[in-house]
């Protein structure tokens, strides 16, 4: 009875404390959303730059041989087929000037003796010089050239093979070079046509499978976890030693305070979670959940929250330095979210880390939340989570008992 009385007292105390923080509270709770908004803003403002016009690329030929001339011409012509890239031949000073004037996003540099070295199997290198004012476009060009050189590398080995055998057949130098060039051009087009090797089909099983919906649910789940941590740390109190002593005389234990904190945290998070979920359901008409499944989802999230808070309390007790506690708890929150499989789906993790998912309470609850909301299942495995929560409570009780013993 005394135990409950203390808890109720602390709950009241916490609520008044929160009411006094009416200004910082919403700011703190919105901070993860603001952070997300900031991220979205940066991505959009960066991607927005070159969306409407095509990417302009310069081709600088320092080799000036017949062969590179042909390659450059081929590139120039082939770029006119697609509509998002345009390549133009220019000399180096023009290219540098064009970058300064922000007219091209990058240029590709064919160095001296490029082709001869390639045929001889000596080291030759293509350089891509990017425009610092157009980073996204430059990266795109780099990616493209990287793919092309990867293909050329394997073609090059073949051309060198042909060269090797042609030499053994005592072919004349001039004739051999023209044969190699012919083969090179041949391979060049061969590489460009590689996309036809695979016939592609897309599979969709039902309407609720859009990645946006999946990530919205995943984001909501992560957000609830972050809110739990934020509210929990907001209720943290650095009690002075005198106060602690006095509370002890009244028979108050640390466990009672932590339980009160958890109840308040759960209560406020529940309100926020319900409001944000209503928002989701408003934006996505696909979300249609039967009444009994609402119960399942809330139970899953509740159990997840309880276990998460138990872990935070344990960390509080185990680590004595507050500074370190906050840092470790933040890290722990990150790990819990990562191993829920919400942000990066479980299948993409390394094999040996998949083991970790069987121990992850956040994954157990998120997996069933996903199954219910996205796949319309009418079932959730609650037992493992319940057992974890019960064991967690026992550990906390034992820990608290031992703690009070030691300090008295």
């Amino acid at each position, binding site marked *: 009875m005394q135990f409950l009385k203390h808890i109720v007292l602390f709950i009241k105390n916490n609520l008044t404390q929160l009411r006094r923080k009416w200004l910082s509270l919403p700011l703190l709770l919105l901070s993860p959303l603001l952070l997300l908004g900031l991220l979205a803003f940066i991505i959009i403002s960066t991607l927005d730059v070159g969306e409407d016009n095509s990417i302009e690329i310069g081709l600088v030929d320092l080799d000036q041989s017949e062969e590179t001339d042909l390659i450059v011409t081929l590139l120039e012509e082939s770029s006119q087929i697609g509509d998002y890239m345009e390549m133009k031949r220019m000399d180096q000073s023009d290219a540098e000037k064009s970058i300064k004037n922000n007219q091209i996003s990058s240029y590709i540099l064919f160095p001296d003796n490029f082709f001869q070295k390639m045929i001889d199997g000596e080291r030759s290198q293509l350089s891509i010089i*990017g425009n610092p004012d157009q980073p996204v476009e430059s990266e795109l060009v780099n990616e493209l050239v990287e793919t092309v050189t990867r293909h050329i590398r394997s073609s090059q080995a073949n051309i060198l093979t042909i060269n090797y055998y042609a030499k053994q057949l005592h072919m004349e130098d001039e004739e051999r070079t023209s044969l190699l060039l012919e083969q090179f051009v041949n391979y060049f087009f061969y590489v460009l046509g590689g996309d036809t*090797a695979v016939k592609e089909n897309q599979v969709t099983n039902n309407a609720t499978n859009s990645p946006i919906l999946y990530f919205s649910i995943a984001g909501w789940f992560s957000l609830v976890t972050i809110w739990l941590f934020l509210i929990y740390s907001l209720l943290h109190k650095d009690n002075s030693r005198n106060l602690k002593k006095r509370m002890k005389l009244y028979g108050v234990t640390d466990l009672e305070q932590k339980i009160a904190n958890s109840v308040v945290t759960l209560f406020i998070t529940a309100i926020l979670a319900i409001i944000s979920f209503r928002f989701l359901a408003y934006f996505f008409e696909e979300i249609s959940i039967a009444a009994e499944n609402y119960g399942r989802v809330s139970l899953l999230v509740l159990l997840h929250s309880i276990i998460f808070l138990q872990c935070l309390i344990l960390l509080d007790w185990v680590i004595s330095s507050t500074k370190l506690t906050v840092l470790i708890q933040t890290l722990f929150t990150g790990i819990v979210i990562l191993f829920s499989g919400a942000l990066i789906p479980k299948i993409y993790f390394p094999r040996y880390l998949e083991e970790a998912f069987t121990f992850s309470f956040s994954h157990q609850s998120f997996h069933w939340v996903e199954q219910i909301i996205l796949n319309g299942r009418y079932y959730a495995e609650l037992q493992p989570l319940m057992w974890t929560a019960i064991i967690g409570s026992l550990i906390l009780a034992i820990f608290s008992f031992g703690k009070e013993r030691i300090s008295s």
Partner: protein
Amino acid sequence: MKDIIYTRFLLLKKQSFSLTCWILLPLLVTVGFVYIAETAQDDMNVPIGMVLEEDSSASHLLLEAIEDSSLVSVTSLSEREAIRKLEQHELDSVFIIRAGYEENIHNGNRKNVLTSYYSDRSFAYTPVREMIVSIIQQDTGRSKAADAVMNLERQLNGEQNWAIDEIIEKSRQIEQEEDLLQNEFRYDTDSEPIAPSNTLWNPWIIWAFATMLVTILLFDWVIKEQKTKVRVRFPFTKITYPAYMLMNVFIYLIGLLFIDLITALVFYFVYQVTINILSLVTFRMMICLFAFLFVSLIRHAYASYVAAIMWTLVLIVISGTFLPFSPNNQLLQWLNPLRHFLNGEPTTFWLGICVIGMIIWYVKEGKKYA
């Protein structure tokens, strides 16, 4: 000054162990992060399903080549089951080797030799397809080369009688042994960014964020000492409170700079990355002043810890470190105190702001005791 160093030493002696840990934390975090990120990135795998419609040596060779790749982990299964698993998002994508594959490859024909299935949640489909296509390209390319050599022999009436397999083997050998075409990427600027290409994660970038956070956490002495009862006695000492604080910041600065030099040496020997000393020193000065002002503005130690973590998260977001491209929003870049350091330049703008902040703080504190 000597007295202050002595008192600071007495204060720190009691917590020397935890202090050492905190000071070395950025270094340890960086080493740990780079290690974990690199192994995890190597081990990240994409589960794909392979269906073999043809039981030939060529199709098995392709399957083995795909299995050898570190990008994917392959499960062989029937078409129906593969598609069912794809629908349940247990596989990223499914590739089917069509019947007649071997014959097509030997003829150098590669049109539609594979069929693929992917869903709208196949995040890694494109790189996997690229990889498989390039393996097929290699095989068909070699057949093409062999074909060309055979033709040549016929034309020139040679009598060597080379075998196709021999030519294909030669091409493999050349690919492994010779120094083939490379490409490099750089920006058209004078200042080199501090990112070298031999490690995927530049340790200095990770270190910059870690040290920002840890320095703010370390500066909680400002709050603690503001609240102690000793403070009322400052009017009776020969040194004023703001001067005392300033000298202590200086002591921390020197100590941390020393650790930074050690860090630079460690990074040089472990990762072979160098750093511009001027850039490092100005960055450290800015961080120390920044941490002091940051903590002075927030009166509670616990709140300052939470705020420091939040602030670091904001910095990570606006620096765009974990984005595949560098953001170019000018305003946000100016607001980012780490920008100069990450670009390998001396930190000037934010150091100026922090110095101005310190002057304002000094004048304000001075007035309180006047």
